[in-house]
């Protein structure tokens, strides 16, 4: 059986909104679980960088809320996590189950890409694979050769073909050091907050009342794909489209850099889904 890491987190009010545990809080817990799993299954993360010139960056996130769970639901949050290697070390996948083992309230899947570091103080690197030494530290049942899914692409296509476009908006932002990790590169856990800011601007300006679903009810799913990092001082723009289907209102986000001189390109795409209980 694949190895699992268990963490018990004391609940505090900042982890939650009035309707659910913040997606960013769950991603932050996921980062702690990732560090713990790397330490248990591979080596301490510092040693991964210093001795193996390797690190990992998040390239995809799928968060599914299974049931209502708020601050008053429990005093502690149990986290059960495990790390598997995908496609011969080209990817690492973290699965994180939150809540009681017999009744979890959320499942987070985080797809990571190993990065080979150049060895400079900038911690600059290129996408790579785990070397044979690291790969051998995974148990036999922690290797998964199945194709890697890209749910955000599938979800976006389904909404574009089967949903009704009900609103769209844009928001500008600048990446500050508080948004970054040790290399002055954006923290992937900050993405849900930027998505939320863009969505909320649309809610408060909405002509179509269905857009308010984006604040009125808990999120049911978040899919995100990180394509190109942003860095300290980079300027970005978040473009958001809201779609309604028979049972959901969803927000499709595209985040681009608009930093002077930078090549054009999408840095991240994401879909947030909110269930309307069958009301169109």
């Amino acid at each position: 059986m694949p190895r699992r890491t268990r963490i018990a987190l004391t609940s505090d009010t900042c982890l939650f909104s009035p309707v659910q545990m913040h997606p960013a809080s769950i991603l932050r817990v996921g980062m702690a679980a990732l560090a713990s799993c790397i330490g248990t299954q591979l080596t301490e993360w510092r040693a991964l960088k210093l001795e193996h010139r390797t690190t990992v960056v998040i390239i995809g996130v799928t968060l599914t809320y299974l049931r209502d769970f708020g601050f008053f639901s429990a005093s502690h949050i149990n986290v059960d996590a495990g790390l598997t290697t995908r496609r011969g070390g080209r990817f690492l996948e973290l699965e994180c189950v939150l809540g009681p083992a017999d009744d979890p309230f959320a499942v987070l899947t985080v797809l990571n890409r190993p990065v080979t570091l150049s060895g400079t103080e900038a911690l600059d690197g290129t996408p790579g694979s785990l070397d044979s030494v690291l790969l051998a530290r995974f148990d036999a049942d922690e290797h998964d050769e199945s194709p890697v899914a890209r749910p955000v692409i599938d979800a976006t296509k389904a909404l574009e073909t089967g949903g009704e476009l009900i609103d769209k908006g844009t928001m500008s932002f600048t990446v500050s050091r508080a948004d970054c990790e040790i290399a002055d590169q954006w923290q992937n856990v900050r993405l849900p907050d930027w998505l939320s800011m863009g969505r909320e601007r649309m809610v408060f300006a909405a002509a179509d009342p269905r857009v308010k679903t984006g604040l009125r009810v808990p999120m049911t799913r978040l899919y995100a794909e990180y394509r190109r990092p942003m860095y300290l001082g980079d300027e970005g723009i978040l473009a958001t489209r809201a779609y309604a289907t028979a049972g959901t209102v969803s927000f499709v986000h595209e985040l681009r850099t608009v930093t002077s001189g930078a090549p054009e390109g999408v840095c991240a795409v994401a879909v947030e889904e909110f269930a309307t209980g069958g009301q169109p």
Partner: protein
Amino acid sequence: MKIVLSGALVRFADYTKEVEVEATTVTEGLEFLTARYPDLKTVLLDGDGRVRRTHQLFLNGEQVERGAYPLGAAPVSCANPDTLFVLTAVAGG
């Protein structure tokens, strides 16, 4: 020419994101830049004076082929108001 640095590099250039340089080629621009900010030199260039594979150069939005920008290689011309962007592929984690 203006050189714009990736945010991963600005701490090696005294938190300067945009640098005006006097240069007629990309190579001259990089020499000017790394002379002004010596800490940036070891981060941006390898031991042979080549821009590390972890960074990419874009002149007015067009990628400069890697073979064209080691110091001392065939020059890539530039002039005002050109912008050279130094992009760090990925970092940290």
